[in-house]
């Protein structure tokens, strides 16, 4: 139903004018008065298409400077887009910066009234909800003191209380909530869960993939002002994490290539589930991974073979050798050996990994060669870390009070 689309953006773009000298400002003024578009502007966001439906929260991820805040400002109407258009239906609550719109000289009460008016609450609604706001903020006698005497946590409490009382159709926020103390954070999280359970919609900017996956159904990854990936939250966050890991690992990789032909042992082939190319192999979480290794042995001696899995950034996850398990690769002919190892029900958590193989000499001492193959595990698990450890919960309350959200 198109009526339930809360936010829709088409071809959204934003560029800032390049203003260095006072003269540029004058020129810009004259240009804008005549309605001539700016030829040399800095593009910070281009061609963003978004659609957020009621109840379908969106996570915005990306590196610093990728344009996330600019996009949020465009969505809240603080900034005017250079190209494209945004339409937002329903009441929007924005929790972006600490105490936006609070005046430091005024008391908490005055600021509540002002910021409620700024968010479009009518005087009538304001009167009805005032006590609710004061109770939610729960900052005691500070409510009558000027906001400049507040701690940053208290400012957040007040800001959150106002937005909570707005009962927004769409809540736009970033990680400001991390500022409050433990009990207030719990209150916020509880409010947020109730809000989402009641069909509320959220646009969240976060660097915590955990939060994004927990709270959002869709995600949008911004890179250098453009959408790098947009869609299901697990797909997008995983490719974002993979991008980061690969970026981190990139400098170390180059030293690897060296001539191994003519060594005592070298790898002829490494196949994952029968596939031999260098493109990442996509494997569903908890399915089977088969690794096939073919080694050339110059002198016909039987090699020891090591197979390992590491995260893209190089963190080792698991490694095992034929010698440890007391097996030997079978000879195909006098100088070629082949072995296959199977990992049934792979418990690697969704993300990007590298499968490595090395041949060692028969004594298992010298390492001769390395082949790596990228591997991507797909899945929608929100577990943390690298692998799933077998576990069982005990002492569990029998009837579950709250269903798994989104489930």
């Amino acid at each position, binding site marked *: 139903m198109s009526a339930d689309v809360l936010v829709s953006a088409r071809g959204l773009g934003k560029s800032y*004018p390049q203003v260095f000298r*006072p003269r540029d400002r004058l020129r810009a003024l004259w240009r804008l008065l005549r309605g001539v578009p700016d030829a040399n502007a800095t593009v910070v966001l281009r061609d963003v298409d978004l659609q957020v439906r009621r109840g379908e929260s969106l996570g915005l991820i990306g590196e610093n400077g990728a344009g996330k805040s600019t996009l949020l400002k465009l969505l809240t109407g603080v900034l*005017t887009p250079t190209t494209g258009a945004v339409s937002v239906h329903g009441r929007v609550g*924005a929790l972006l910066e600490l105490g936006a719109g609070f005046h430091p000289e005024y008391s908490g009460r005055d600021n509540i009234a002002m910021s409620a008016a700024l968010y479009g609450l009518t005087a009538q609604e304001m009167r009805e909800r005032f006590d609710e706001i004061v109770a939610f903020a729960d900052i005691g006698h500070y409510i009558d003191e000027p906001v400049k005497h507040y701690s940053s946590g208290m400012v957040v409490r007040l800001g959150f209380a106002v937005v909570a009382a707005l009962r927004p159709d769409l809540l736009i926020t970033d990680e400001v909530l991390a500022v409050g103390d433990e009990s207030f954070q719990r209150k916020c999280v509880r409010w947020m869960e109730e809000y989402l359970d009641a069909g509320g919609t959220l646009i969240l900017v976060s660097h915590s993939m955990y939060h994004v996956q927990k709270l959002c159904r869709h995600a949008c990854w911004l890179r250098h002002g453009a959408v790098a990936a947009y869609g299901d939250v697990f797909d997008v966050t995983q490719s974002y994490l993979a991008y980061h890991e690969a970026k981190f690992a990139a400098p170390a990789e180059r030293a690897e290539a060296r001539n191994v032909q003519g060594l005592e042992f070298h790898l002829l082939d490494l196949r994952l589930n029968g596939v031999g190319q260098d493109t990442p192999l996509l494997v569903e979480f908890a399915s089977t991974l088969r690794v096939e290794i073919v080694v050339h042995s110059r002198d016909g001696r039987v090699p020891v073979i090591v197979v390992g899995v590491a995260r893209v950034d190089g963190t080792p996850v698991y490694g095992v050798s034929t010698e440890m398990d007391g097996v030997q690769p079978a000879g195909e002919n006098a100088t070629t050996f082949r072995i296959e190892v199977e990992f049934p029900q792979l418990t690697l958590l969704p993300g990007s990994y590298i499968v490595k193989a090395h041949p060692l000499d028969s004594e298992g001492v010298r390492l001769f060669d390395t082949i790596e193959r990228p591997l991507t595990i797909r899945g929608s698990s929100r577990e943390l870390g690298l692998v799933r450890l077998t576990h069982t919960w005990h002492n569990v309350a029998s009837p579950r009070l709250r269903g798994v959200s989104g489930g």
Partner: protein
Amino acid sequence: MSALALTTHFVRREIRNRYLGSFSGGLWALIQPLIQLAVYGFVWIYVFRMRIPGEGAPGIVPFLALGVWPWNAFSESLVRATTAVQDNAALIGKIALPREILVLSSVASSFLLHGVGFCAILAVFWLRGTPLHLLGVPLAAALFLQLFVLALGFALLFAAIQVFVRDLGQTLAQLMPLWMFAGPVLYPRDYLPERFRGWLDWNPFTFYPEALRDALLGYGSAGTPWIVATVIALAVLALGYGVFRRLSPHFEDFL
């Protein structure tokens, strides 16, 4: 509706901002023009030995008062409103609100304060037996309203340009006295040599003290017909609003 509520909030805040922490509070709005009036009155009566020419001419003090109050409302609202957008940069960068409201509430609070002061001084004159035309009071109110429209037009224009050219606000504050002396605020038009008298009509403010004196004191007459002044005020408002609307989507980029 919500824009109106928001404007009310901003006007209230603006008025409180001006007097926050001052002892005399809102009374200052009345005291300051009174001191001004006393100074001008003293200089005009005892130093320059000036008299208002003509049969049945009003005393110099009521004459000055009808120039000083509208001028204060007009000039103060322009000077303050010119930086209204720039001063609220922090707010504009964080919350989506119609920016016109910032200018509107700045002009409105100046007119509100000086309007109250004006009523008070009229009451004082009336109690002291100055012959005031009470029938002219509604006319005076209408004139003040029209002056508000003119001021709002200029304020929108200046506030928008100020975002781009920061010198405007300071220049304007310096030029205000010149603007005042280029109009019959502190002197009647008749004081000017014959050939300069017509020049005053180029000043859009000239109409207001002249028309107010005509309405309330029965002294003189406005050099411009009321309808022309109305058209000018509306034209300035249209121009100011047009420029403001055109530039306001880009404010955030230049603040």
